[in-house]
Structure formats: structure tokens, C-alpha cells
């Protein structure tokens, strides 16, 4: 009896170790994803907790060495839908006060240098870029987040949002076009002329 108990806990220890190495390493990415979905640090924390709880329970069904980050993101998204969708704002409606509060509670650790070459981009405030992104319909915003911010491939995104790759491609194209138009609106407010033929 005693030996069986020992064997179980060795198995459990291995599971914990693998979980830390494969799953817990993605906690920053998950937290950021949750923050952008909920716009609220407390809700984001709860969401991440629940995601890891579920992930740990089902960890034996996860195939080691495959994309754990994608697997976790999918769990988190499902948790988000179940928990928060009912109270979510309408698509495309931006809560500007929420965004301002959100930005004031987190430290901006990014420098202002950018690889992008023109003044157009320097004129945009972080908050404005965020608002522009948040104002997009959710299906566009989500794929832009997953692609540009999290670096998932189209195939992975297709799996996460449960749509064909062609749809992901199309949403990214249309979403970016919309986003660009909104960014240009903000830049114009800063007095930047966005006409290409002056």
C-alpha cells in the first residue's frame, strides 16, 4: 500500500514539474490576454486562475510538446465567454473611462523609440492605439491580438477562434484596414497630414 502511494506521488510530482515548465511559463502572455479581454486587472487575475485550474485538471489530456500556449489561450477564451460575455459591452463600443483608468493603473514600461519610420506613428499616444484597437469589432480585434501581439500562426488562430484559415486571413486584412483608418484619424487630430500626395 505504501509503495503504491509513493508511485502516485512521483507521478504527480512529474505532472507538476511538466506543468510548471510547459504551462506556467506562459502566465505573462495569458495575463495580458485576459487583461485585454476584461479591461480589469482583478477580473483578469480571476480568469487566469480559473484557466490554470482547469488546465491542470485536464493536463493529462494535453499532448506534451505540442503548443501549450495555444491550448491555454483557448481554455481562457472559453472561460471568458462563459463568465463575462453576458455583461460584456456591445461590439465596437469603447469604454473610454475604463481605458483611461486602465492605463493609469499600469506602468508604461515601453520606451518611445519605434522601428516604424514616420512621424505619423510618433504622434500617436499609447492610449490612442489602444482605443483604436478596442473600438474594432471583436472578431477583428481578437485576431489582431492573437497574431500581432501573441505571434500565433494563422493555423493556431483558426483553431482558437474555431474558423477556417481563410476567415482568419480575411479578418486580419479587414481588421487592419479599419485599424489603420482609425489610427489616421488620431494622427490627424495631432496635426499630422495623412495625405500621401501633398
Amino acid at each position, binding site marked *: 500500500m505504501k509503495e503504491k502511494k509513493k508511485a502516485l506521488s512521483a507521478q504527480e510530482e512529474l505532472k507538476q514539474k511538466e506543468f*510548471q515548465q510547459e504551462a506556467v511559463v506562459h502566465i505573462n502572455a495569458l495575463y495580458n490576454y485576459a487583461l485585454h479581454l476584461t479591461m480589469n486587472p482583478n477580473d483578469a487575475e480571476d480568469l487566469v486562475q480559473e484557466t490554470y485550474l482547469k488546465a491542470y485538471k485536464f493536463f493529462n489530456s494535453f499532448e506534451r510538446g505540442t503548443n501549450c500556449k495555444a491550448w491555454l489561450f483557448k481554455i481562457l477564451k472559453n472561460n471568458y465567454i462563459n463568465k463575462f460575455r453576458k455583461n460584456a459591452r456591445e461590439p465596437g463600443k469603447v469604454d473610454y473611462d475604463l481605458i483611461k483608468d486602465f492605463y493609469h493603473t499600469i506602468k508604461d514600461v515601453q520606451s518611445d523609440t519605434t522601428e516604424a519610420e514616420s512621424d505619423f506613428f510618433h504622434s500617436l499616444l499609447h492610449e490612442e492605439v489602444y482605443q483604436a484597437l478596442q473600438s474594432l469589432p471583436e472578431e477583428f480585434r481578437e485576431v489582431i491580438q492573437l497574431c500581432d501581439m501573441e505571434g500565433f500562426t494563422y493555423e493556431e488562430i483558426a483553431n482558437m477562434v474555431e474558423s477556417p484559415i481563410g476567415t482568419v486571413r480575411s479578418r486580419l486584412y479587414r481588421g487592419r484596414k479599419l485599424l489603420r483608418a482609425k489610427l489616421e484619424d488620431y494622427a490627424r487630430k495631432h496635426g499630422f497630414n495623412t495625405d500621401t500626395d501633398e
Partner: protein
Amino acid sequence: MNCNKAMVLMSAAIDGELTAQESDELKLHLDECPECRAEFQDAKNTKIIIRERIVRVKAPKTLVESIVRMTNVIS
């Protein structure tokens, strides 16, 4: 290839998601079309902006610790 089609492909191009054939076709068009070349640069810049301007934070230490603790408790 016309410019409209080129623009659709550009979006996938900046993500490295074109097929070889699409990639060749786009390159051919870009070689001949300065407007689309400029548009392509704009598209790349938009992606850079998202990556650089959207704030990313570290998960709170308390959260990390709580998750590590949680996995140690569940069996």
C-alpha cells in the same frame, strides 16, 4: 495581379503566411507598382505599432505564486 488583390495578400505577407506562389505573384506586382510598395510599408508599420504601443505587463507576483501553490495542492 491588380492592386486590390495585392493589398489582400500584403496582410498575409507581413505575417509570413503566403504560399510560395502567392509570394511570387505579390513580389512581381510590387516590383512594378510604387503605390503598392508604399502601401506594403504602411501595412508593416501598422503591425509594428500594435506590437510596440500596446502595453504588456508582467503577471502580478501574487498571481504567479498562487498558481504555483495551487498546482502543488491539487492531486
